[in-house]
Structures are given as C-alpha cells and as structure tokens.
C-alpha cells in the first residue's frame, strides 16, 4: 500500500542521483549571465531541446539553462547550457 502511494507520484528525472539541478533562466537573467561571462550563447555548451531535462523544464531553443552540478572537487559548480534544436 505504501508502494502504491509512491508509484502514484510521477517520477521526475530530477529526483535521480545522476541528474543535477537544472534551472531555466529568464531572458533577463540569461543576458546578465552572458554579460558576466563575456561570451555569446553559441560559445556555451549545448543542450538539445529534446533532452529529457530540457523537456521537463519546457525550454525552447535559444534559452539558457543553468545547471548546478555537484562536484567532487569544488562542492558545487554552476554551468550553463544553451538550448539548441535537435
């Protein structure tokens, strides 16, 4: 019965230990990030629109996703990925 309850909650990929926290940035936040890093969007690593994490966030192409990784060396690191079609 306990199991039933747990299964009824839909599994979110962000609960999985391998998946770090993803945050979809607003236009304004994205601009600030690009300015701070001094790069153009295409110079960031990419993430595809069809990526399960991007889909879960409802990201569209051209968006920027902020990812808070757990890092064995730095504790947490923040990286950004640019949403590309594909």
């Amino acid at each position, binding site marked *: 019965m306990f199991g039933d309850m747990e299964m009824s909650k839909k599994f979110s990929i962000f609960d999985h230990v391998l*998946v770090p926290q993803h945050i979809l940035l607003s236009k304004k936040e994205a601009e600030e990030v690009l300015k701070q890093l001094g790069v153009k969007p295409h110079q960031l690593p990419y993430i595809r629109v069809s990526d399960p994490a991007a889909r879960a966030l409802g990201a569209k192409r051209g968006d920027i996703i902020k990812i808070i990784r757990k890092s064995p*060396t730095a504790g947490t690191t923040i990286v950004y990925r640019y949403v590309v079609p594909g």
Partner: protein
Amino acid sequence: METLTKEDILKEIEKVSNILPASIIEELKVKLQNIKLTKKSLEKILNRVINEYLNSLVEPGEPVGAVAAQSVGEPSTQMTLRTFHYAGVREFNVTLGLPRLIEVLDARRTPSTPMMTIYLDEEHKYDEEKAKEVARMIETTYIENIIKNVEIDFVSASITLIMDLEVMKDKGIDIESVVNLIEKMNIGEVEVQGEDKIVIHTNIYEINKLQKIKNRIMSTKVKGVKGVHRVIVRKEKNEYVLYTEGSNLAAVLRIKGVDATRVYTNNIHEIEEVLGIEAARNAIIKEAMGVLEEQGLDVDIRHVMLIADLMTADGTIKQIGRHGVSGEKPSVLARAAFEVTINHLLEASVRGEKDELLGVTENVIVGQIVPVGTGIVQMLMTMRSAKNEGKN
C-alpha cells in the same frame, strides 16, 4: 580587539563565497566556527586562503587538454598488460580494464556487457522475499523457460506444453496467465489438461508451419522487462540490491518496488536518452573513474571531468576520436594530423577550406609559435596608442 561570535565568523566567511568554491567555504566554516578570532585575524586567514586558491588555479594558456590526455593515456598503458580481465558480480562477468575504458571514450552504442544496478524502495529493500518478487518482475521469462517438454502432434495438429510447475511457482507465474497469453496469440483453441498440460489445437496440418508456431510460442515473453536476461539478488550492507545482465533503464524505472532515484546502468547512451545529457556526463565520469580505480590507477578526477565535458559539450555524446571530438576540429591540418590524413586534405582542398592557424597542432606543422602558455599572448597594446587611433 574583541573576539568574534560564531555567527559573525560564518557571516564573514559567507562574504567571500563568490570567490571561493563551495567545498572550501564549507571547510572554512567547519574549521573556524569554534575558534576564538578577532576580526583582523579572520581577515588575514581569509586573505591567505583566497591567495592560495587563486594561485592554485589553472593558468591561462595551460594546455589542459594535452595534460588530461597524457594523464589518462599513460596509466592505461599499464592496463594493457592485464587486458581482457573480467571481474564479476560473482555470478556474471563485467568487462573491465582497457576494453571498457575504450568503450566509454569511444561512446559505443551498447556496452559489451550491459549491466544494471537496481536499488529497491523502503518497502522491498530489507526483505529477501520481497526483493525476489521485484526481481521476478524484471527478469524476462519466456514460455521456453517454464516448460519441461513440448510435443507436436502432426496428426491432430496440436501442440502440447508440459509445464514445469516448480519453476513456475518459483517465478510466480500461474497456468492461467500462460493460457491467456497463448489465447491472445490467436492460433487456436487452448485447453488445460490435468495439472500441468496445456494443449493447443490448431487447424494447420503443414509440418513447417506447425514448427514455426511452436517456435513462436516458445519465444513468447511471459513476464519481465525486455532486454534484461538475468537478475541476481545480493545483500549489500543492510539492503538487498538487484544486479542484472542486460539493460533497459526506461522500463525498469517504471517497475513497482524499484527505487527510481538510484537505478544505474552502464549503458551511457540509455542514460542520455532517459535522464539527459548532464546525467550522461556524470555516468561517463563514474564509468571511467570506476575502471581506473579498479585497476589501482590514481588518475585525478579533473582530467576525466574535462574529457566528459568535452564529450557532452554539443548536447549529445560524442566519442573522442575520428568520428567525434578530433574529427570535428575546425582546423584542416589538425584533423589531418590525427587520422586518415589524405582524406581530410583531399576533402578540404575540394571544398576550398581555410586554416586560420589558431590551434596548437597546425602551428606545430607550419613551424610557428604554438599558442600555449606564454605563446597564447598575441599582442600588447599601450592604452595611449589605442586612444590615438580612436581619434583618427
């Protein structure tokens, strides 16, 4: 000067969190919070830490890629001697050592020994019987696996299955469900005779066709997840964990009783498909480090992290090598210097490609200063001449 309170110390440390990484901030908090400090001495400590940190950062122009390549490449030559080593989860073999490392870096579609580690939820993980129940749900069972014998009667055009009741009981399958399954196949009337006999009356009198139908029945899946051939229940510390031969992440995540947050597979492409590119990056690091550590090779995780970053940079998993990272370098000469030289030169000449000579390899080839270390500095300009130019 008076000493700072614990709260003040934590506050001061928090102020430098935009400079120092989270792990150092945490360490500082733990180590400094119970020490009597004046504001001045805390400042001194923090300044010293920041200085040390900034000094230990990679310098601009450092060829981190080449260093990473060498740092992984050299230890792997130590591995080659003991290659094709198998070390297993007791019952089955898992590819380890150099073959596995090559598999990971080449981003092979499927590993040679796909394997899953499945953790169970609170309800199932402490009880062996319940763990086995979940295992049965996952392990694929075909009709072939639960029968003692099969007979084909060509005269009456019937197929008789003699079921292995013991095996069926062990796998938690009843005869009803098997009958239902065969009925769904629409081959003929299905009849249960006695305790363990299932007779299927077909109207097909051709020997070949009857044989084919028999084979179809044999390979019908009764239970389980497609692609997972064998499941083993093992006790680890205080919980039961399932190990599988074969992998199907998407399907296993949906099985009841499985702790979906911890399911792991060594098939990196499956992880990318189901959990995304960031999870795949983590899986690449985990797999590569696992191989290196298992072989007793001490490779810094930073090198492996760099490789994983590079492999996942364009949103898909790219292999290191001709069909991936190396093959997509913008410079013709760099690509030609790696593999299949003539093809690259030929194609580039047909397309009229230009080489901007921005990378390392191409500058080595033409004999210029390589843009590495101090060589990366291209021009120095004094501010005054810049201003003057602006006026003109």
